[in-house]
């Protein structure tokens, strides 16, 4: 068995009285693509945000490349710890709302953290950014501001921005949910290509077709727990659990 790239063990997360995650275990192998499905409020986005410590879990352990990144409950609250640096330099995230920096050009969005965090020279950062933006099909938009781009284009910039930091793992948090239907494909195409190149990916999504085609493993969550997980063919086409069947029925009906 290959060492897991990301391993989540018994993750619990509470927001006040509300327990959003009630003990979640997931293993993601190197180069694997794991898709997390589930109704809204099932805790899937929170789980993803736990992996890069945007929401430090209260209980449980997260291993990234074998390193425990939360030493005991509440350790993430310091926010300036070794764990944070370790995680943020290995894990990239793309958000539902893009969160591009509106006061920076497309190119600056992709070079800023390279220069400030990785101490790359201007030329290095620029070369890397240009290459990545070309890869996501935006080499003509380098000097535009994000507000001038479509949602799909903005999301592709966000993917390039995350990739510029040379992450070992990429997290995708419902990255196509805020897009007009005709813009979804261009973003999924970029993600599909990334998966083919062997990037380790943890993807929260409602795109069943994408999960079926690209995922090595599909995880179905509901009510803060994993209901079932397995190969896409098993979970998506022959779900064992009633809750999974019901959810898939509702989603596929559309």
């Amino acid at each position, binding site marked *: 068995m290959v060492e897991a790239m990301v391993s989540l063990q018994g993750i619990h997360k509470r927001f006040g009285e509300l327990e959003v995650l009630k003990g979640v275990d997931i293993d993601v192998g190197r180069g694997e693509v794991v898709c997390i499905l589930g109704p809204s409020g099932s805790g899937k986005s929170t789980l993803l945000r736990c992996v890069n410590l945007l929401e430090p879990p209260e209980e449980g352990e997260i291993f990234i490349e074998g390193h425990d990144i939360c030493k005991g409950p509440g350790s993430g609250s310091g*926010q300036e710890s070794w764990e944070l640096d370790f995680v943020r330099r290995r894990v990239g995230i793309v958000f539902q709302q893009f969160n591009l*920096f509106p006061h920076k050009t497309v190119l600056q969005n992709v070079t800023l953290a390279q220069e400030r965090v990785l101490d790359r020279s201007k030329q290095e950062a620029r070369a890397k950014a240009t290459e990545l933006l070309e890869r996501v099909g935006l080499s003509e938009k380098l000097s535009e501001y994000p507000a001038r781009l479509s949602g799909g284009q903005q999301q592709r910039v966000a993917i390039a921005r995350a990739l510029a930091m040379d992450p070992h793992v990429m997290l995708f948090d419902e990255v196509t949910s805020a897009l007009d239907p005709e813009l979804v494909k261009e973003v999924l195409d970029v993600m599909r290509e990334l998966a083919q190149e062997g990037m380790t990916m943890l993807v929260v999504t409602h795109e069943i077709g994408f999960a079926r085609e690209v995922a090595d493993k599909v995880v179905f969550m509901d009510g803060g727990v994993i209901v079932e997980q397995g190969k896409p063919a098993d979970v998506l086409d022959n779900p064992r659990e009633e809750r999974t069947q019901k959810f898939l029925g509702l989603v596929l009906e559309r």
Partner: protein
Amino acid sequence: MSEFFHQYFDFHYMGEHFWEVFEAFLQNLLIFAVVAVLALTWGLVLALLRQLPGKKFVPVRFVTIAYIDLFRAIPILIVILLISGGIPFLEFIPKDIRIPHWFGKPDPFWYGVAALMLVYGAFTAEVYRAGIEAVPGGQMEAARSLGMSHWQAMRHIVVPQAVTLIPAPMLNEMISLLKDSTLVSVIAFSESVLISRELLAESFNSSALLLTGVFFIVIILPLARVVDKLIARNQGKITRGSHIEVA
């Protein structure tokens, strides 16, 4: 009725003392300019201290909030009187500092500047805070997720966006500050109100005071229109739903 006009609108008297009052008014503008630079800086420092994350900065946040609350609550006049009536007698402070005569300005000038800075730092901190809090939380999250520190994220991402949201309320603070520069007259600094009152005492005529008022109106009225324009511009942005753009 002519007595009334004579008391307030004696144009001959105004003309006679115009340059005297005008020069004193320049002192108000000088106080304003110095304090504006200091308070805008001090306010930003306070706002950033207030936004420090995590448990270990609880004491810093507490002290900052206490400072801001205190100096917004206490009348500026009292601060001016406390500083000018106290600092000079604190003998453990070197004389050049407790009785400053820097850049050829007398000590009351500097006591006034200090008092206004302390108070206006607190007010501008609240304006900065409103701007910082109006920047969507996703911006900080995105910056932090890319490995930037809290300070880097503040400096490169949050504050540059925050300051584009607040010119209108900040200009309001600056208008107040310009007017409050007249309070330094109570500690015998020769600015426009003090000079006008001396003229009033000497001639029993209020026209110089009215002239001083006109100087302030002439400077501030256009600024008030600028505030309106800025507000309208921001409103337009919100209703159009577009992102802010800065070069």
